[in-house]
């Protein structure tokens, strides 16, 4: 077994464990930051894990009239996110499955997870489920062009869409991080991530008001262990997206060679980067209001423009 395969396998396993264990803590951290800034005490960063433990022990409930799609969707969503957590460069630059660690594959896989939940929302046959699914897929469709064009901008420099290759090229050429192309692409990807993880100003994760909710409307019928999976999956998605953002633009600290110390540094660097990004996102949210659903396309059109400028800049301002 070569060195990079070992690193990929060990690192992949390690980062999957870190993300599963750490994602609820990330959510807890973001809530805590918001609470403190809003002058509340907050429930502490381990509260999401306590909630999950409670939900997992409950009795599973199937709403009448729903099908296998409803029951399989949470599993599919968490499984897809788990695969992404294992293969993308979070703790190590090497991937256990190089044939999957492609930026297009990762973005499309995460979209598949959204689709699974949207189908479950429709499957309930309630107005809320359909409404949430409709809104979520609309946002998904509009985010896709931005995401792919931003990927384009990132991959022009590396000459590949492989995640490890992109990370390696940034490590080899640190000044590229401050190039206009990279900055514009980063700005576009931040908006993509805000929309995909359902944060303000696109969606408010704390609301249950029918006029405004998007993600929560789809999962309204879930309870018990199924709900726990959904919550865990959403938290993992946030961690994965923030981790991608962090390591695509600021990959330092990531383990490039096998070794306990390198992996340890990789884990710490990853946790710190995602924590800082999450805290920053939560802090920014305090100052934002949710925009109307039909203003979201304008926001996304803006981010698309940034991504397109990033591609042009990578060529013109080289």
């Amino acid at each position, binding site marked *: 077994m070569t060195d990079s395969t070992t690193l990929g396998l060990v690192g992949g396993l390690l980062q999957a464990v870190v993300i599963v264990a750490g994602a609820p803590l990330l959510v807890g951290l973001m809530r805590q930051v918001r609470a403190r800034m809003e002058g509340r005490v907050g429930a502490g960063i381990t509260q999401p894990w306590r909630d999950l433990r409670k939900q997992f022990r409950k009795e599973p409930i199937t709403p009448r009239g729903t099908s296998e799609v409803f029951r399989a969707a949470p599993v599919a969503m968490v499984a897809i996110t788990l695969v992404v957590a294992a293969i993308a460069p979070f703790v190590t630059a090497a991937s256990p499955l190089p044939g999957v660690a492609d930026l297009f594959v990762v973005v499309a*896989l995460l979209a598949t997870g959204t689709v699974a939940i949207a189908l479950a929302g429709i499957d309930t046959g309630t107005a809320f489920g359909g409404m949430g699914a409709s809104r979520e897929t609309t946002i998904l469709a509009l985010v896709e062009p931005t995401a792919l064009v931003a990927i384009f901008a990132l991959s022009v420099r590396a000459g590949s869409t492989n995640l490890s290759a992109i990370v390696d090229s940034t490590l080899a050429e640190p000044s590229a991080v401050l190039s206009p192309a990279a900055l514009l692409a980063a700005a576009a990807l931040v908006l993509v991530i805000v929309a995909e993880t359902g944060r303000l100003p696109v969606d408010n994760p704390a609301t249950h008001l029918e006029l405004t909710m998007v993600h929560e409307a789809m999962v309204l019928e879930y309870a018990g262990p199924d709900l726990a999976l959904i919550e865990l999956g959403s938290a993992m998605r946030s961690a994965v997206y923030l981790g991608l953002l962090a390591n695509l633009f600021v990959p330092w600290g990531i383990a490039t060679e096998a070794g306990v110390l390198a992996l340890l540094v990789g884990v710490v660097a990853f946790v710190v980067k995602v924590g800082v990004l999450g805290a920053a996102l939560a802090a920014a949210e305090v100052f934002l209001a949710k925009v109307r659903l039909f203003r979201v396309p304008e926001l996304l059109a803006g981010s698309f423009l940034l991504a397109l400028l990033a591609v042009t800049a990578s060529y013109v301002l080289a």
Partner: protein
Amino acid sequence: MNTVEVALGCAAGSALLAVLAALVVRRRARPAVVGTLTAITGAAGVVAGAAALLGERFAVELPWIVPLSGIALTVDGLGAAFLAVSGAVAVAAAIYGIGYSHHGLDSRGVQATFPLFVLSLLLVPAAGSITTFLVCWELMALTSLVLVVSEHRRRAEVASAARWYAVMTHLGFVAVLIGLLILSAPADGDTFAAVRAAAADLSPAVAGTAFVLCLAGFGSKSGIVPLHAWLPRAHPEAPSHVSALMSAAMVNLGVYGIVRVGFDLLAVDAERWWWLLVLVLGAISAGYGILQAVVSTDLKRLLAHSTTENMGLVLVGVGASGLFASIGSPVLAALALTAALMHVVGHAAFKTLLFLAAGSVLHATGTRDLDSLGGLRTGMPLTTAAFGLGALAASALPPGTAFVSEWVLLQSLIHGLPAPDAAPAAAPTVTVVVLPLAVAVVALTAGLAVVTFVKAFGVGFLARPRSDAAAHAIESPATMLAGMGLAAVAATVLAVAPTLVLPTLGRVAAGLVGSPAPIADAVSVELVGVTGLLSPVLVVVALVVAAVLVVAIPRVLAGRRARREARLWDCGGGPLSPRTEYTATSFAEPLQRVFDTVLQPVQDVDVTHHQESRYLIAAVEYRRRVPDRIERHLYEPVLSFVTRWGRAGRALATGSVHRYLGYGLCTLCALMLLLVLA
């Protein structure tokens, strides 16, 4: 004896036998006999195509069939790919047709036309001369027209759809005819080899005219905007197995024509603007097609619009390939063309599956309106599974069929831009502008396709039934399920193991643009010449392992408790009626609003007030329609112009025989005069 020759002979023989059987066999047994023989025709087509793809070449001239020019058949790599695809679609459609035909489609005429249509689909890509090609092309148009009208007694819209189809397909034929005649005029004979040899002598203007004419004619067959108007009419109105053949096999032949003319016959004359035109038309078709699909509520119409979208994506690949060839990067040209061919193959598989499943729904419920379907999973579990698989394949999500080809397409587009430190001359400005926009269009299309198929599958098959017909739907007969099963297997294999066909298609594309093969022979999709690696098998394996872990770990840690049924949350208002469910219309409403300026929907709200008081409302009526905007602005003026001239011309025809004789005399005199003067 050559395998291709034997297989093509078998195909022709069994098709003719099927025609004969349709005419003599009793009505009860007719669909089974004709369907079986047609399936054999299709299978023979697959064998012929596969043998030719593996390297066997075949050419034959049969001068005795058509007077003056005779028939010439040549199967090369490009033709073989399309031949195999047509054959495979025909096998599934023919088997499905056995069960589907028992409802008014078992008349002699319809049953005898079906095998002829399949045969023409096999012969068009095998044609080796312009006459042969045009004869087969017209046979294909006429037989499909007959099949489109086969249900005209049941639904009034069929006749109108068939008229649109007849007119547009023949205008397209005229364009192709003129284009190909321009090519064959200076050539010595009309075989493709002769045309290819004479192409170098054509002036750029003549070659360009011929290409644009062929593009218009072939593009209209593929449903390319703005010549798409017939497609969302004719494909839904045809019987479903015929829709599958039209949407999965016939439209491909338009692409075949464009590739054959642009990359083969006129390869030496090809100019950059041709391919930019193809790329732009493809991008517009992809975007416009999927936008129309998002807002349509008719299941088969939605699929027809999605055909326009997919053919648009194929043309984006073809156009990009030509563009790369013109800027001197044959490796990328081969890659883009491979992506286009792969998308043709994948689209054929999932569109067959989707149309057959839609036909199964129509068969069981009698409606194609998504707003009155829903809840089909209880009555029709297999059809639901088939449609779900097709929807996954069509929405370009991993692990789906279309994802692989779109990934290859995106890879070719992304590598089209050189690294910033490369010499600036390596990429002309046009590619710097076009390629990112092409990526954006492909991405937007992919995103909207997800919405379209989530809507079609979720609203149509999941949730609760929105009508009695949907509530009492029962599963289709075994032959229909077998047809769907074949298509489902093909779509799955192409999604999980695309490298069974990708390297072969890569070699075909490489042969056309003159480059080394762009895809390595490996289990994973491995690009040669540029970096890129995708392993669909590993994606599936990783997902399965992760799913097992996700199910197992919580059970081990938290224990397992029995599932309990509970009421849906109904806001305390009692059991929810299906009227409270989201429909296909409401599902697509946000996107319709977002793309308001493009789609320009027409909405009417009629409020009827109470007689006694204006403050009380008796009824509210809401109507919404999304008319095809291009159609309204492009076709309606032409149609009204033709109608006006028709009315004006009516004054000439008074019914007097003397007058008509006078017209004849005048024409004759004018002709004589012309001959004397010339």
